[in-house]
């Protein structure tokens, strides 16, 4: 049996839940067709999560590619199809292009080992200064901090996921929520063991009365817990939290059936700090959003 998974026109972190609602009830070895034909736009989160989705399936899925040429071209520029071809059976016309996408700070990139993080950091430093300082009017100090945050969230894959994942970074204009303000978005998605299983693998781990994905996210993100006994562990996400706090940004991390968010001080986002009972999806999906500074 093959099930068609309908992908929303606009694919980002929230709308990706509609995809997961369709996929989660299906057996892992059931063939799925991920239908993106009518997609009009995808955020870095949407693209990296689509790749993680394919990794999470036992049976190689089919991907119907977007019909709109500009969408297909854009996804090509993001290097999405380059990686998707390894994970999906692609069906439809993929428009290849060599032209660079100026809003892209980092194309969809595979992360599975420490060297990959070095490559990402080297690559983004060359592009981040202009994008963050000139386009988003952010203080020059942000460039290094931004790269540090990117490095830390990528390392979570290498250190904890147990399998490879994906990162992408892009600037774009958020027309609805920020009233035309630009944002820069980092998305890092993996289909690995996730936060709960990672903490459960800690030596001497004891399950609490209430123990679920939401609790595991709170322990890790808000209290710096780690599966390692080394007290130096757990600082990376704490640093990322400080970073988004200093720049009125937002950090959201989804793992298993829950999503936790460190919300901006400003009123540009109305997300809940913790959302539970979501459809199950393995691994961890991280999104960092930093808005343009306005006078």
């Amino acid at each position, binding site marked *: 049996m093959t099930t068609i998974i309908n992908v929303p026109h606009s694919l980002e972190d929230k709308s990706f839940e509609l995809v997961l609602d369709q996929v989660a009830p299906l057996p892992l070895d059931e063939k799925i067709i991920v239908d993106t034909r009518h997609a009009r736009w995808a955020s870095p989160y949407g693209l990296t999560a689509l790749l993680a989705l394919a990794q999470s399936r036992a049976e190689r899925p089919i991907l119907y590619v977007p019909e709109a040429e500009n969408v297909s071209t854009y996804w090509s520029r993001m290097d999405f199809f380059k990686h998707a071809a390894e994970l999906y059976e692609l069906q439809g016309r993929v428009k290849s292009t060599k032209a660079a996408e100026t809003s892209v700070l980092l194309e969809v990139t595979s992360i599975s080992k*420490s*060297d990959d*993080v*070095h490559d990402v*950091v*080297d690559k983004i*430093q060359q592009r981040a200064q202009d994008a963050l300082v000139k386009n988003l009017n952010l203080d020059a*100090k942000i460039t*290094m*901090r931004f*790269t*540090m945050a990117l*490095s*830390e969230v990528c*390392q979570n894959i*290498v*250190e904890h996921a147990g399998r490879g994942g994906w990162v992408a970074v892009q600037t774009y204009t958020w027309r609805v929520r920020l009233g035309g303000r630009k944002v820069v978005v980092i998305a890092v998605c993996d289909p690995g063991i996730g936060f709960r299983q990672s903490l459960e693998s800690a030596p001497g781990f004891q399950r609490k009365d209430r123990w679920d994905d939401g609790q595991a996210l709170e322990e890790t993100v808000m209290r710096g817990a780690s599966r390692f006994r080394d*007290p*130096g*562990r757990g*600082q*990376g996400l*704490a*640093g990322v939290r400080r970073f988004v706090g200093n720049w009125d940004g937002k950090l959201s991390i989804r793992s298993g059936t829950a999503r936790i968010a460190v919300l901006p001080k400003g009123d540009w986002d109305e997300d809940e700090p913790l959302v539970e009972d979501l459809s199950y999806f393995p691994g961890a999906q991280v999104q960092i959003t930093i808005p343009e500074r306005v006078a």
Partner: protein
Amino acid sequence: MINHIDVSSMLRKSVCELYSNLVTRPTGAAVRCEIEQELDRIGDRALTIIDFSHVGLLDFSCADEIVAKLLLQYVSIDAPRREVYFVFRGISESHMEAIEAVLERHRLALVTQHADGESQLIGIVGFEERRAWEIISALGAGVSADVADAIGLSSADAEIMLDTLWRRRLLIRYDNAYVAVGSATIPSHPSSLDA
């Protein structure tokens, strides 16, 4: 003897010739091992400048592996492994953020030296201990009586405080006096000093 370790060179030597950023925990561990090998060559008593001038990015994981774990090995109130003193140079504002975070996490402190030669004590140090370090630093060299007078402590308490700072390798002890690590008055041959 004052030794100089260029962290960027350690990175290129131990991990990859092309890298200039200190990111990821394995990279930090490899660089620290390289630094430790250098320290083994130097001997049991030494003042070593750890120079970050040519390092681009330093993330939290690398700061933990290189700075915190290095200090944890050589700086201990109970039983310091060897008499090795560190001065950290070339610390940029962004390096500082990662370094301060790991110092706080492990309750450590270190001395940084700015380009103009001015030294600064950063990390977790008690208010009076910090004052004591600053007094010794300003004097060039000092004894417990100098600190006792300035802070209003008994001579015995001042001596305990200076001893603690010495054990944390923030002061160098010689001839019954103390010199602040990073001070311009540090003798060029600390191996000749009495511990």
